[in-house]
């Protein structure tokens, strides 16, 4: 591809619309237009220049803002669809069948359709992830396509521009003044006072301000890419730990995902607002009912001693006592432990009495720990109760056998073998809450006396090495977006024309109002010719603009 040589002698890369140095239009189209398109300085962008090979086509596809915006809108629309009904995550069902049933029950046909189309798990669906991937590619390619030529042209721009460039600017003025040299000198002075960067060359001034804001979009896009990269990394092992731990009061357990660490639950606390202590809220409490004020787990963190065998709980060293509350996780060694859930009053143990049915005399009491039950309970004098089988969460019989729904003691049931001197072979009895089943008529029975309960706290253990990457991405994005939004790139050209004429032109990438305010100040101070804003028909017809400022 050959270079384009401008009349001014500068060699422009193939595809340039405006000469990099003097600004003369290079294409037929640009020569004919009244206002030139100043975006990217009319530089030669790859996407506008090469259109042949497949790579060119892919490049051009992704660098198009039209496509970029379409992808953004597609992500937006799919995200919105995902909020129509609750996502799978929020549905209280685990199996696919139950999930489908849930949608059917709550949302009817629309719910079934939502499930069938896969919208119930929108944000993990392959098409959603593909869209986000395309968004990332588009951001990268579109940025590279523009930033390089933009950087080059802004660097190479000359102070003195060709009149054909000046004439095609949105802000343009031409007129005679009394003393061109004086006006130029004063303009330079004023522009400097307005904190413009002023360059002069052979009867021409280029005043420029805030060029760095042009890099804002590229900085913010970099931030976005870093953020998305961080999200991608969480998929790799080791970067991300997410475990749950149910811990009963008094219990010590190994922390899943954090080898060598143990956690003990000393106490779980649930507080509510009271009308007496929080009198300002009494109206709200009356209206809504009980309002929880605090969920808290008082815990102790232990670490396995150096050299101790794994799992040897005597070898634990205390690390710290801590109260985990919502919004105040326990932090250690890069891990966070969060208060997420709780169960109040879980059964801890049950106490029974062995009685002789006929005389109703007691042969003694025994207590079954519902988490680690003993196999045999000796009541003395050759009397003992053997726990043959235990069902923590009894849920009726299946095929003649009792079954347990979960290992949590919600509804304990027991097979007891009761042995007494009178019945040395023992009697079998199935005991559940409000239900006793005997295979044959027994002389003895185990009657329920009392139960002890305790609370269980639900904790979540997280380790996320990507958080810092995400935060870095966020910070870079904010810097870039502020840079591009709160500053803008203004340029003012003033040149001597024929005789006593001065030519004036201005450009900004945004905030034309601000540019015109600056220009008005310079114009009044240096007595420059009037200019017009060729995109604001209304204000130039008034001819009063700026006068009152």
């Amino acid at each position, binding site marked *: 591809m050959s270079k384009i040589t401008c009349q001014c002698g500068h060699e422009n890369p193939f595809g340039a619309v405006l000469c990099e140095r003097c600004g003369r239009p290079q294409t037929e189209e640009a020569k004919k237009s009244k206002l030139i398109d100043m*975006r990217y300085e009319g530089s030669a962008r790859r996407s506008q220049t090469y259109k042949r090979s497949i790579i060119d086509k892919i490049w051009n596809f992704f660098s198009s803002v039209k496509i970029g915006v379409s992808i953004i809108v597609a992500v937006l629309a799919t995200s919105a669809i995902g909020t129509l009904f609750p996502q799978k995550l929020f549905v209280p069902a685990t199996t696919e069948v139950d999930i489908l049933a849930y949608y059917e029950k709550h949302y009817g046909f629309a719910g079934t359709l939502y499930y069938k189309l896969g919208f119930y798990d929108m*944000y993990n669906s392959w098409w959603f992830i593909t869209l986000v991937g395309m968004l990332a590619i588009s951001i990268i390619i579109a940025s590279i396509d523009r930033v390089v030529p933009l950087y080059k042209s802004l660097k190479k721009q000359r102070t003195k521009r060709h009149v054909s460039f000046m004439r095609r600017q949105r802000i343009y003025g031409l007129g005679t003044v009394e003393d061109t040299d004086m006006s130029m000198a004063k303009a330079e002075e004023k522009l400097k006072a307005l904190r413009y960067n002023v360059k002069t060359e052979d009867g021409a001034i280029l005043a420029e301000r805030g060029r760095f804001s042009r890099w804002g979009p590229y900085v913010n896009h970099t931030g976005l890419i870093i953020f998305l990269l961080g999200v991608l990394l969480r998929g790799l092992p080791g970067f991300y730990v997410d475990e749950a731990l149910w811990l009963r009061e008094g219990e010590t357990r190994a922390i899943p995902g954090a080898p060598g660490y143990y956690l003990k639950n000393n106490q779980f606390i649930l507080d509510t607002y009271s009308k007496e202590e929080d009198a300002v809220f009494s109206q709200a409490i009356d209206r809504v009912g009980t309002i929880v004020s605090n969920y808290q787990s008082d815990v102790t963190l232990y670490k396995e001693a150096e050299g101790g065998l794994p799992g040897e709980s005597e070898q634990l060293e205390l690390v710290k006592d801590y109260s985990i509350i919502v919004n105040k996780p326990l932090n250690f060694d890069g891990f966070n432990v*969060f208060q997420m859930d709780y169960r109040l009053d879980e059964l801890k143990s049950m106490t029974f009495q062995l009685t002789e049915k006929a005389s109703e005399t007691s042969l003694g009491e025994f207590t079954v720990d519902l988490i680690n039950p003993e196999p045999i309970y000796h009541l003395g004098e050759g009397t003992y109760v053997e726990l043959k089988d235990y069902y923590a969460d009894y849920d009726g019989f299946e095929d003649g056998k009792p079954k347990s729904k979960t290992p949590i003691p919600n509804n304990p049931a027991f097979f007891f073998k009761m042995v007494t001197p009178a019945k040395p072979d023992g009697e079998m009895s199935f005991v559940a809450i409000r239900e006793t089943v005997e295979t044959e008529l027994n002389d003895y029975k185990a009657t329920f006396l009392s139960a002890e309960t305790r609370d269980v706290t639900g904790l979540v253990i997280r380790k996320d090495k990507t958080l810092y990457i995400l935060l870095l991405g966020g910070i870079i994005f904010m810097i870039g977006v*502020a840079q591009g939004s709160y500053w803008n790139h203004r340029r003012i050209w003033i040149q001597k024309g024929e005789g006593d004429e001065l030519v004036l032109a201005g450009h900004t990438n*945004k905030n034309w*109002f601000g540019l015109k305010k600056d220009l008005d100040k310079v114009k009044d101070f240096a007595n420059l010719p009037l200019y017009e804003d060729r*995109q*604001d028909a209304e204000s130039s017809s008034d001819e009063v603009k700026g006068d009152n400022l």
Partner: protein
Amino acid sequence: MELASLSANLLLVSFIAYLVATMFFGGAVKGTNSEATHQNNRWGNIAIVITIIGFISHLGYFILRWIATGHGQAPVSNMFEFTTAFGMMIVGAFILLFFIYRTPSLGLFALPLAVIIIGYASMFPRELSPLIPALQSYWLTVHVITAAIGEAILAISAVAGLVFLLKNIDLTKKSKQRFWLESVIFTLILVVGFILSSSTFAVIGYEAKFTYINQNEQQAQIVYNYPPLFGMNEYESLTPEKMTPLAEMPAIVNAKTLTTFVWSVATGIVLYLLLRLILRRPVATLFQPFAKKANSQVMDEIGYRSVLIGFPVFTLGALIFAMIWAHEAWSRFWGWDPKEVWALITWLFYAAYLHLRLSRGWEGKKSAWLAVIGFIIIMFNLIAVNLIIAGLHSYA
């Protein structure tokens, strides 16, 4: 309670100040020939001073209420508090942009918007409410306030857009744009309908109590403040002397919300039809003369500028601070909760706006329409997502 009632009075003062200021802005607009770049107009000066007084009083409300909880909790924790604060920030954002561009037309439309929003807020329970544990965090305060400031600045872009559209759409001829502009006005009238009907029944003190069977097949109680058009699932009236519902709804529908909705819409429609009947032309024409003096180029630029100013603030508040808080409260920085998703949608939408404007030259009407749509998305997130698609963030 002393502080709380003083704070309520300050809110009332600001409400009235905004109404008065609107009229002065009207005078300022009337008194000029055009507003290319504005202008030390006497009416305009008075108007902005009253606006600032109102804003300071509003700020006083906010600060006193903050103190009044005694728990250091910022008054952004329920629908009433949040929406009122949002109204305050819209006025703040307007003041900011007024001092850059000095266009009374903007005030003439921004202040009534704030008035409607405050009016809307007052329809919710106004008592101080305690925070549930998940909301007890500095990050919540920082997140909500920053996000609301961002949204308020973005809202000004919609106001500028509306002025631009009112000025530039030919309302004498039938067209798509005229239809949509009229629809926007109609929607605003619906909100007024809600405020009107709701406060009417509140003044009367209407209450109808029911028991019903909820989604979890348990019995529950509910109080209607509107005459019940629709009954809850298997409802039974506890106040038989009051109106009997016309129809019973299944458990998945909240018949109370539906009743409120239908009453509000009906009131709004009646209001709108009355206006149409009196005017005999689109209601938008009523507002058009107030927009005619505005300079299109300046309005277009205000629209763009407020998105530029608001977008970074919104990003910081609604996404970055939100993620930090979510990480502390729920152990994950992002959970695809509907409220979060709608913040993302809003953000993507304004990103699309910026790209369309910058690279595809969407200026003028197109960009004004986008700004109006953006505001609709914001309001959808504030209202509908809270009340209908309740997620973790649902207040009240």
